[in-house]
């Protein structure tokens, strides 16, 4: 009797193993940047000729949200962020990632023209869909994105008062993720 059960147990074990493997999201790659200081940068903002760098947020817990007007998942995520920003719980900084794509005819135009066009497009988009950001920075060539390990837009980072990355999420933020993961983390980081 016992012997008969061995293959069954092995089979169930295999099924559980494969089921867990299927449920896991292959896009979820643990970021080595968690627990490390947020990479420094200084980029033009969306609003005007000022620059923003993460050091400006020293002493605050904040979110960095990577987005672009061409990004489909961002559109899905956007109402969630807008509703969240209306509660004023945490400042959200946008990182406009490669707004002008390589297939765009404007891709090869001079930096200033690209910046102007990217700003126009982004502002139109934010006017239409709502603006959850205290500011957005323009990462036209995606170099800052590389320093943050961005590989799929949207991505969201939680950065603490000391400027250390505490959490990273790849994909569209959902109300459930905000309520279960991000808000408790922010509350905890604000205490310290």
């Amino acid at each position: 009797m016992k012997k008969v059960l061995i293959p069954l147990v092995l089979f169930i074990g295999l099924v559980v193993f494969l089921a867990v493997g299927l449920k896991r999201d292959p896009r979820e790659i643990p970021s080595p940047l968690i627990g490390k200081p947020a990479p420094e940068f200084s980029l033009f903002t969306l609003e005007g000729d000022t620059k923003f760098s993460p050091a400006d947020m020293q002493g605050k817990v904040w979110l960095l949200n990577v987005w672009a007007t061409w990004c489909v998942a961002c559109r899905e995520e956007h109402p969630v962020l807008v509703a969240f920003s209306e509660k004023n719980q945490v400042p959200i900084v946008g990182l406009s990632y490669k707004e002008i794509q390589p297939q765009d005819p404007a891709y090869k135009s001079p930096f200033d023209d690209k910046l102007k066009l990217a700003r126009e497009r982004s502002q139109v988009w934010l006017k239409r869909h709502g603006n959850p950001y205290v500011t957005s920075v323009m990462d036209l060539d995606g170099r800052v994105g590389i320093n943050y390990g961005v590989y799929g837009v949207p991505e969201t980072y939680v950065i603490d008062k000391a400027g250390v990355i505490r959490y990273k999420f790849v994909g569209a933020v959902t109300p459930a993720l905000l309520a279960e993961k991000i808000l408790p983390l922010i509350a905890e980081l604000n205490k310290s």
Partner: protein
Amino acid sequence: MKRVVVRVAMAMSLVLFASVSTGREAVPMADDPKLEARLVDISQELRCLVCQNESLASSHAELADDLRQEVRELIRSGKSDQEIKDFLVARYGDFVLYRPEVKPLTWVLWFGPFLLLVIAAIFLGVYLRQRRALAAPAALSDEARERAKQLLKG
């Protein structure tokens, strides 16, 4: 005559559509073939984060283009292969390497298959021994032999 016209039209439309479907323009190769060779060498060892099962060398994803550009610049600034890999690992994690470093965190990955093989070999050994024990002819006792003889005589 009509047939010829149709054929020519078909051939022309083929040419037209072929030119439409060529898609994205090729990314220009850098001028320095030596640098390009090193880039290929390094990026074959690196995973494209977007397609995951393609190397950075063969991927057409946009991020792969950007990362290859980044690697080119690191090569130009005189970084060693190891330094370039470290640069990418610091940003994207061990996952970016096709041959991750051997360290406690990756032991399961490196040695797990061998461990499974050893366990399987032990099971096989135990199983074969049991089977041999079952299959081995049991020695006949004298009494049983006597009885068999009687039976055979009928």
